[in-house]
Each structure stands twice: as structure tokens, then as C-alpha cells.
């Protein structure tokens, strides 16, 4: 079993990976792990460290535990490895501050694969992953959710259920569902016609329409939950893209991006989903693949790595179906890898397509609202997209954008973290909700469904009526008022 160095100088040592194939997965990441110089710069950026103050719950500590498994000094089934990796939000704030460019998110997914192979993960997380992958149960679950959210049941339950225990979890789930409802833009007032005209007069006129498809061709990832609970965001994305001169190609055969699977370490499943999407999108030959859910975008940018690795012998051990003689032969593998690289290079967040680097979206009608922008971690830290959403919102006449204080920190959503880790998730989430409330904005804007529901649930449980929307929904409303969609 494991051999612990109890002190002294480290020389040589067994670093070829212990614990059989489990250690191998991490040992194969030696170069990535050793990029960490143990400087500790990431400690203050980590939401779990600054709440628990245990270095095992810091990025450096988690990387160290991964290293110890790779070296064969730590059993991946140990409580320490399981607990501290499980507690990670996967927000990747540690990557943004790391001077060594450690690819923490990538390593976390591999470590979680090792962890769940060593010891099964919690029932809730397993059930969620299975549900997302199975078309019929997923359709039933989402269908019920859609019906339920329009009823008064969720808001009633939020009011009457206790805030802790199993029922507390149910209450939070109901609040999340309630938070997935569409935002209600401020009504054009009674003297609407005049008011709007006044507003219009006060700001420069809308920009003329570009020719259809003049900018190029794009395809949108419609996603799983996004497509079910936030279809309106997909529609808005499509409309604003068209209004900005992009041809939007529809892609049949696409599906869930696999982000939740990858984050949970179910890499074989994630790879399968990646392959399906890569094939579906490649057939279209578009200029850009547009993501409007930050979590999906971040994962899709990693497809190259994911599929690259998929054919490696160590990973093959975990995926017997990928035998070279099977349906996915060597030639298929190679083709998938090339396609994966192509795919990753073409993924862009919707806000990057419309704004940033000196570009700004077509100007629509004024929208006199105060919006608070909270950056999703998988956009800010995962994709390093910081300013385009702000530029997009800032380009809309009369929209006042206020930042959320300490906005770079995670909202605690992190998939279903709020449900699987009610205590810690609740503390992270509670701080975010207080910060958001402090902005006194009309609408909270964020570009990821998970964050929208997490923060929205928190707001609802505090009795706040603050609206929640995606950045393109705000732009879309401005366009609608400008009459861009009239003809």
C-alpha cells in the first residue's frame, strides 16, 4: 500500500504512479501537476479556503493530494482525497491568479475520475448525471419542471418548507426552479409611445441593419438544461445574431455538452458526448460555434484535450468500448482528435461574438434599467472572458451597469453544489446574494443557467423581487423595442 515519507529530503522517490490504474491517470499528468510551484498565491482566491482555512481545501492543497496519489503515497479511496476534491467548487478562480499557469480545472476532472473509480460518488450526483444522459427520464423531469414552475407551487413551497435538512434541499430546488422563469422587462408606460420616443431622441439613433449573413455563419449549441428551461435564451441568441448580420445554421444531432459529466469525473461519458457534438457541428463547416451557457462553452473549448486523451492507453483502460477493433477504430480515433482540435478552436461565447476587441453590437432602443452583472466563473476563469459581456451591456442605450462587489468569486452554484453541499454552498451563495442585493439593481445579469438559478434561488429565499436575465436577453429586448424584429 501507500508509503508515506515521514520527513527528510526528497530525492528520486517512487513517482511513477501507485495504486494501479488509478494512480496512472494522475501520474500521466506529472508535467501538469509539477507546474505547480507550491507558491500559495492561489489560497486567498479560493472560495473554500477563505471559508474553511484548511489548506487541504485550497487549490495548492488539492493539487498536492493529487500529486500524492500520483506518487502512490495516498490512497484515492481515502477520506482526505475524496472529501477535499469533492468540496472543490470547480470555479477555477485559482487558475486566474496562478503565476505558473497550472491547468487546475483539467487536473480536477482527471482527479475526480480517479476518485469516483476508487469510491462511488453520492447518490444525488450519480442520479443527476444519469438523468441528463437518458432522453426519456430527462424529458419527463424537464417537462414536469416546466409545468411546475408556471404554477404557484414552487413559491408556496419556498415559503412553507423549512430551510434545513432534506426538506431544505427540496425548498432550495423549488426556489431554483422559480428562478428559471423569464424576466419581465419594465413595461412601456401608459404614455409609452412618448416616453420611448423621448428616450430615443436623447440617444443616438439605432444603427442600420447589416446585410443578412454578411458577418459569417455560426451555429449555436442549444444544450440540455438550457434547451429545456431557458429555450428563450437560445431564441434570443439566434435573433440578436441575425440582427447583427450573422447567418445562424441549425445543427441536428447535437446534444448535451458533457460539462457536468466532465466536472464530476465521468470522462468516458463526457468523451462520448463530445464526439457526438464534434461530428454534428463539423458537418456544418461554420465559422464559429456559439455557446451562451458559460459552463458549456468552457467544456467545449476543452474538447480538443478531452478527445486527444481519449485514445491514450491509460484512458483506454477505463473505456473498454474504445478498443481499436471496435466501432471506434484507430482511424475513427484520429479523425475525432483532429475534429476535436478544430472544434475547440472555434468555440466562442455569444458575448465575444458580439462585443470586445473594439467591436460592439448593433445599437437598439434605449432600455432604462439598472443591471448588476455577475460574471460566471466558467466564463471569467474558465474561458478568460472578462470584458465582452460588460461591453455588450454598456452598448445598450440607457442601461446602467453596476458591478457586483467581489464579483470574481463563485456564486456557490457549481452544478448541483448548492444541493450536495448545503452548508458550504450556502455560505458561498449567501455572500453572493448579499453582494447582489447591495447593488439595488432591477435585474441581475449572468451568462450561465446554473448561476442564474443559484443566485435567483437565493434572492427568492430572501424575498427579493430582483429579476434575472442573460446578457443577450437584455440586448434582445432593446432590439425588440427598436422594432428590429418587426418585419
Amino acid at each position: 500500500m501507500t508509503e508515506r515519507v515521514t520527513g527528510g529530503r526528497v530525492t528520486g522517490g517512487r513517482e511513477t504512479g501507485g495504486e494501479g490504474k488509478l494512480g496512472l491517470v494522475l501520474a500521466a499528468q506529472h508535467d501538469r501537476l509539477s507546474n505547480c510551484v507550491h507558491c500559495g498565491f492561489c489560497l486567498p482566491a479560493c472560495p473554500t479556503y477563505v471559508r474553511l482555512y484548511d489548506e487541504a481545501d485550497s487549490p495548492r492543497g488539492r493539487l498536492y493530494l493529487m500529486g500524492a496519489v500520483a506518487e502512490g503515497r495516498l490512497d484515492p479511496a481515502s477520506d482526505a482525497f475524496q472529501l477535499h476534491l469533492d468540496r472543490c467548487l470547480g470555479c477555477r478562480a485559482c487558475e486566474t491568479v496562478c503565476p505558473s499557469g497550472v491547468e487546475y480545472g483539467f487536473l480536477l476532472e482527471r482527479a475526480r475520475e480517479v476518485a469516483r473509480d476508487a469510491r462511488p460518488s453520492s447518490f444525488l450526483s450519480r442520479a443527476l448525471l444519469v438523468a441528463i444522459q437518458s432522453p426519456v427520464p430527462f424529458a419527463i423531469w424537464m417537462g414536469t419542471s416546466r409545468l411546475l414552475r408556471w404554477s404557484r407551487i414552487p413559491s408556496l413551497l419556498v415559503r412553507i418548507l423549512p430551510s434545513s435538512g432534506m426538506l431544505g434541499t427540496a425548498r432550495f430546488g423549488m426556489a431554483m426552479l422559480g428562478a428559471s422563469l423569464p424576466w419581465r422587462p419594465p413595461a412601456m408606460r401608459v404614455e409609452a409611445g412618448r416616453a420611448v420616443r423621448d428616450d430615443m431622441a436623447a440617444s443616438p439613433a439605432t444603427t442600420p441593419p447589416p446585410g443578412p449573413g454578411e458577418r459569417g455563419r455560426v451555429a449555436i449549441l442549444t444544450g440540455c438544461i438550457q434547451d429545456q428551461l431557458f429555450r428563450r435564451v437560445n431564441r434570443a441568441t439566434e435573433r440578436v445574431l441575425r440582427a447583427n448580420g450573422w447567418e445562424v445554421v441549425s445543427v441536428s444531432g447535437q446534444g448535451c455538452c458533457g460539462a457536468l459529466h466532465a466536472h464530476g469525473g465521468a470522462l468516458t461519458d463526457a468523451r462520448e458526448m463530445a464526439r457526438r457534438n464534434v461530428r454534428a457541428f463539423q458537418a456544418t463547416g461554420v465559422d464559429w460555434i456559439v455557446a451562451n451557457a458559460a459552463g458549456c462553452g468552457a467544456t467545449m473549448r476543452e474538447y480538443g484535450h478531452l478527445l486527444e486523451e481519449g485514445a491514450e492507453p491509460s484512458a483506454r483502460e477505463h473505456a473498454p468500448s474504445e478498443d481499436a477493433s471496435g466501432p471506434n477504430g484507430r482511424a475513427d480515433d484520429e479523425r475525432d482528435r483532429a475534429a476535436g482540435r478544430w472544434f475547440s478552436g472555434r468555440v466562442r461565447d455569444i458575448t465575444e461574438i458580439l462585443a470586445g476587441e473594439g467591436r460592439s453590437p448593433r445599437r437598439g432602443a434605449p432600455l432604462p434599467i439598472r443591471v448588476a452583472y455577475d460574471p460566471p466563473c466558467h466564463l471569467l476563469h474558465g474561458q478568460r472572458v472578462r470584458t465582452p459581456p460588460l461591453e455588450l451591456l454598456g452598448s445598450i442605450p440607457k442601461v446602467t451597469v453596476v458591478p457586483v462587489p467581489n464579483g470574481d468569486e463563485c456564486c456557490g452554484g457549481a452544478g448541483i453544489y448548492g444541493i450536495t453541499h448545503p452548508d458550504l454552498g450556502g455560505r458561498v451563495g449567501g455572500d453572493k446574494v448579499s453582494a447582489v442585493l447591495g447593488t439595488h439593481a432591477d435585474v441581475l445579469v449572468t451568462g450561465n443557467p446554473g448561476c442564474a438559478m443559484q443566485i435567483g434561488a437565493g434572492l427568492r429565499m430572501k424575498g427579493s423581487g430582483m429579476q434575472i436575465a442573460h446578457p443577450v436577453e437584455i440586448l434582445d429586448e432593446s432590439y425588440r423595442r427598436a422594432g428590429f424584429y418587426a418585419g
Partner: protein
Amino acid sequence: MTSVAASAPPLDQSLVRRIRSVVGAEGLFIDPDQLLVYESDALTQYRHPPSAVVLPRTTEEVSLVLALLHAEGRAFVPRGAGTGLSGGALAVGGSVLVGTARMNRILELDSENRRARVQPGVVNSDLTRAALLQGLIYAPDPSSQSACTMGGNVAENSGGPHCLKYGVTNRYVTGLTVVLPDGEVVELGGLEREPEGLDLVGAFVGSEGCFGIAAEIELTLIPESEGVRTLLGIFDSMEQAGRAVTDIMARGLLPAALEIIDSETIRAVEASIFAAGYPTDAGAALVVEVDGVDAALDAEVAIARACCLSAGAREVRIATNAEERLALWRGRKKAFGAMGRLAPDLLVQDATVPRTRLPEVLRQVGEIGRRHGILVANVFHAGDGNLHPNLLFDRRDPDQVKKVEAASKEIMEVCIRAGGTITGEHGVGFDKRAHMPLVCSHEVLRAMARLKEAFDPLGRSNPGKVLPDGYGPRSGAGARGAEVGRGT
């Protein structure tokens, strides 16, 4: 090579219970797997897992915990953020780590008297961020300031790029609440108290955790300077850059920072994802920063520029806004990270030589690296001759480890011969204690040991650090987890 003879046994159940009754269940960790993450600081060459980690929140809790450990004869090691580069926070011999991470409150910020009182776990840049709201800063700015703690700064007497002008930590500490190794709480210095004769605050700053735990720290803040100008000189050779530094100082300028980056480092940075736009064929780059009253700065920049050009600079870049300033600094600030990507392991040396001897010492350092076949890249605070050679290697190759050790020792010897010393700002800690006799006479070491004995008669506070074997409180006291012997 110094190592551990015996490791202390785990804490017994009743001690665990008593400590938990002070700090709560989440304030004490004893699972050996979890404790692995505490076995090193930022110097990963050494691994010494502690037997437990305690995280108190208040001075009173620290005092109670130390008293409990004292009664059981257990040794302890203070730990801040573990960014130390000399192995100071290593739990040698399985000592108990007492972490200050939860002691992170700014207790008082008195802008009128430019004074702050903080708990030791406050992060350096958090203090400055809070002070800036009142137009003040905490001056010493270690490159690790976004993570390192004030307790660690006090213990290491830390410096930073801007300490050339502003001085290091000891200039800013005016008072301390110290918990002695037996749990007794003493107040040292402090503005409200009479000057008490001997400067005990001065003795504690730089004591590297060997005199007990600083539980509250009183500090002086200074006003934020009105303006800043930054300039980058690119040179063909290190000699030219060195000459520019000497000229700048000779002209009577006192820049806030004077930092040199050598050719190996420039190439490392430019080849990394942190490329800063420095020419890769340059022999050295010099960052000069001046600050103060806005009106005077343009003249100072003109002088610094002229010095660079007359020393042979091929190019001088001057930042005109905050963004450009950051860009000029990038090559210096990202150097450590960029090197971390060049090789799996990195040893950062820290030595000081008289400023004028820098070019000559650097030449010798380069030769040592070449002779051992080890890549050595240098960044340094040129203004005060504080040198940071970075030795790159792969610890999985025992041969390389040996070469790095040998090269590192030779570098130290070169610095000492040039009239320098073995540490500039990272401290002696565990790493350099064996080399202390190279710079301190037997008498001096004995005097240090007696001072340590006054604070820590039984040798239980951070055992196995700073003083070489044979010095320090008689280990006859038998602190468990404090027996440090010789071995491999």
C-alpha cells in the same frame, strides 16, 4: 544533510479533546492523509508532515493551545500562508503546526495616527487594500504579498521590490502581542506604552517563529505617494545594467525600485505564456520605478533615462499609464511562474552582495551553473544587492538533485567571498541553518542561542530552525517532536 531522527507520536485522545474544547472540532486536524498538504512550504525540497494542525482564532485561543502543548511537552511550529522559501514553517520532527489562517481580522485602522493593529493571519495586500480607502499603504511589498501573512512577514522580516526606498518590515512594526511557548501572553513595545529600554520588538522581528507566536501586530502606515513613473531599460550585457544602477544611485536618486532580470530569465519569460515583449537577445533588463510628489517625477525619470543610455542601453521604454506600467513590470513579476513551467522543480536562492560587486558575482554564478549543467536564471533587487538565482531541475533525477545542492552551496560561498551574506529576505529557516557557521562566528551563534533561550527556554518553538546543530536551548528538556539529529 540534516534530517529528522524521530517523529513525534500522534496526539493522544485526551489532548485532542482538550484542544478541540478550545478551538472547536473544525479547528484541529489529525488525519495523517489530510496533514500531507502541510508537509512543505513554498520550498518543496523538504517534507515533514506535522502530527496535527491547530487553527486558533484569537490570542486567547493561541495562549490556551500553547499552554496545553507545553504541559504535554510538545513542540510547535507557527504557520502563516506557507509561502516561505526557506522551510521555516516545516513541522520538523512531527511538531504541531499552529496556523494563523483564521486570525485574519484587521483589529484597528487609525488613519489619523497612521497606525494599524492586525491579527497575524491578515494577508499583506489585504492590509494595503483596506488602508488605501484612507489614502494610506503598508509599505513593505514582498512579491508574494497577495498571499503571505503579516505574521510571516514579521517572522521573516520580509522585504520587497519597493523596500530599497521604504525599508523592510522591521521599520514598520511598533508593537507586538506575543504568546510565549508556555502560553504566557506578553506585550512588546506599542505606541501607548513607555519605551521600555531594550528593543524587544526589534528582537522578535526576524525571529522566524523561534520565539513564540505573534498574535497581534501593531504597524505604521504611510501615505500613498502622489505619483509613480516606471521605466524599462534593455541592455546588451549585465555589466551595462549594473553600471546604470550605480550611476542612478550616484546621481542621488532614490528610486522606489530597481530590479534587474538577466538574459536567461528574459528568455524563460518570453518563451512562456507570460511573454512580456522583452527582446530575447537582450543581456539584461532593468526596471526603475520612482515615486513621490508628481512635480518632481518627470525630472527624475529624465535622469534615470540618461543614466541608462549612457551605460549603453539599446532601448528605454517609459510607461505613461497604469496599464503600461503593469506591462513593464510583467517580466519581473511573472518570472517565478514562468520558470516554474520550464522545469518541474525550482530552487530559489536568496543572497545579498554589495551592489558594486553584482556583475562579477553574477558572472561566477553563471559559471557555476554551466559547470554543473544546471540552468540558473537570475532576478534581483539590484538597488540593495539582493540576488535571487533560480536553479531549475527535476527532482525525480537524483543526479540533478545532487548537482543543484552543490551548485547552490557554491553560489552561497561566492556571495560570502564577495562580502555578502546567505540570505537577503527569505530567512535561514530549515534550509540554510547548516550554513550559518559560514557567516556567523561561534560567539555570535552562541549569543543567538542565548537570546532564543530567553524567549523559549525549552526549545519548543519551531525546533530545528535557524540555529545549526549544537546551538540552542539544551534539548535535555526533552520536547517531544523537537529532537533533531543528524542523519540522511
